[in-house]
């Protein structure tokens, strides 16, 4: 069913920073199906996610974007009724291999959620949560991690004087950047983001968008968004999902300027959704 386009068209229309060369693949998904109980939510997903690029996932509400991205770090299994088939390889390791501990996978693959979800602790404690859990105790290292991660999330200057205040005192946009910092603190290779700006105001949104652009130097990023403009602005590749299928997957500029599929075109021109 899935019309996943594995071979990419020539990226002629790229106005964003163009894909200079074919990059390495970090995630490779093959024939992936997922059910919630008896309802199938993903159908035969086929997709390669490139390293050090931003990959956007778009599609109307309920099409399976969140389900898909949560499959990548197996968070989707928190729903007890979930059943899956197919293959997801992360750095050429099968993520469902029982020998590959899910905790290890999640240590390598960070995630940022739709609504900022800081812990009800201080800013400092939020950032060091991951490293501490992983056994890093030394104060000096932790301090360094905090500064580095908060800088990485473009939040350091705003909060450096109140690291011990409760994270709930931050604004929504700051909280979201804190969650990004928390995720950076464990130095993942991949960052998954599920509509990270949908709960934010325009200014916070543009800050996060800038941040994503900076981060892609060091991280591979997959980002779900319902805002097509956003996908166009920040991503290198875009996948369009509809009713659990990948309708089209292509370089972002190609996809938006010259969609292959009628349904993609309908969606990006706002005919539905």
């Amino acid at each position, binding site marked *: 069913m899935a019309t996943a386009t594995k071979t990419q068209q020539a990226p002629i229309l790229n106005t964003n920073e163009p894909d200079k060369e074919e990059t390495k693949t970090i995630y490779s998904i093959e024939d992936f199906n997922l059910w919630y109980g008896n309802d199938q939510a993903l159908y035969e997903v086929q997709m390669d996610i490139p390293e050090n690029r931003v990959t956007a996932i778009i599609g109307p509400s309920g099409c399976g974007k969140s389900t898909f991205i949560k499959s990548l*770090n197996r*968070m989707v299994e*928190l729903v*007890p009724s979930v059943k899956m088939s197919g293959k997801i390889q992360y750095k050429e390791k099968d993520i469902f291999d029982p020998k590959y501990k899910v*905790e*290890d*996978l*999640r*240590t390598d693959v*960070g*995630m940022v*959620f739709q*609504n900022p*979800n*800081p*812990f*009800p*602790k201080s800013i400092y404690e939020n950032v060091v*949560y*991951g490293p501490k*859990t*992983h056994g890093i105790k030394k104060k000096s290292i932790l301090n360094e991690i905090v500064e580095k991660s908060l800088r990485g999330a473009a939040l350091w200057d705003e909060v450096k004087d109140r690291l011990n205040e409760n994270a*709930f005192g931050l604004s929504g946009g700051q909280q979201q950047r804190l*969650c990004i910092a*928390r*995720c950076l*603190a*464990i130095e993942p290779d991949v960052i998954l983001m599920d509509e990270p700006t949908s709960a934010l105001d325009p200014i916070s949104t543009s800050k996060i968008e800038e941040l994503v652009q900076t981060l892609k130097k060091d991280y591979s990023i997959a980002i779900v968004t319902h805002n097509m403009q956003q996908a166009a602005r920040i991503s290198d590749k875009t996948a369009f999902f509809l009713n659990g299928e990948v309708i089209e997957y292509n370089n972002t500029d190609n996809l938006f300027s010259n969609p292959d599929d009628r349904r993609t075109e309908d969606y990006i021109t706002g005919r539905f959704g």
Partner: protein
Amino acid sequence: MSNMAVNVKAMMNEKKSKRSVLTITEKAAPIFFMACAVVSILTTIGIVLTLLIETLSFFSRVSFIDFVTGTTWWPFGENASYGILPLISGTLLITVVAMIVAIPIGLASAIYLSEFASEKVRKIVKPILEVLAGIPTIVYGFFALTFVTPLFQLFISGLPIFNALSPGIIVGVMIIPMIASLSEEAMSSVPNSMREGALATGSTRLEVALKIVVPAALSGIIASFVLGVSRAIGETMIVSVAAGSTPKLTADVTESIQTMTGYIVQVTLGDASYGSTTYYSIYAVGMTLFIFTLLMNLLSQYISRRFKEDY
């Protein structure tokens, strides 16, 4: 809408006159409901007045200072002595034993149910725990006396048939479901997004439970402990049946003791005649008990309010 067979609008307008009747119900309803709400206040006033009036009669015969500082409680016969401390120590002894049982087990159950168990297990276990909470205390009392104590006597030589240990433990068992379900509720109300946040950094389930969920739910958990304490203090039948009726200022759980509630029941079932000092003494003890539990309840409310996390 003119093209219609029935003119609803007109009919509704016509009925509008009937609204006056409605307005009466409309006005009477809040008054009736408020009256219902006032009953609970009257109940409290009733309790306080009842206790207060009879307690005052008691203090017209027994000095208040002796009551609160006395170390002997012997309310019968000629040289009666009304020092409440032994009853309080008995009550506290039971409470401490109960909480030593109920807090770890209740909290562990809560963590299991909220963080580890599948929906199915939770659906089965919670009602079972509720049954445990719903067993009449009289049943527990005889269980403590005729099963638990003889069982302990096998291990603890010289354990008297009445002791603080086995009723204490059984009170604890009775409280487990309360702590478990209140704590579980507190933990379940920690939004999943927090668990997700923690799991997504590679935490284990245990780490999520102990480092994120329990701290976030701490106020609810502590409030459940305090309510458990309050329940243990007020528990009556288990201790009347199995703890004995010898008020003693002791911290030894293997001794027979008496609690405040146990004393009240003893006197009501016993022979004290209306108007005697003994009779009034149950109100003084009841007042003390009331104040204790009131403080506990206020404390638990304060905790849940003061430390409430708004996620």
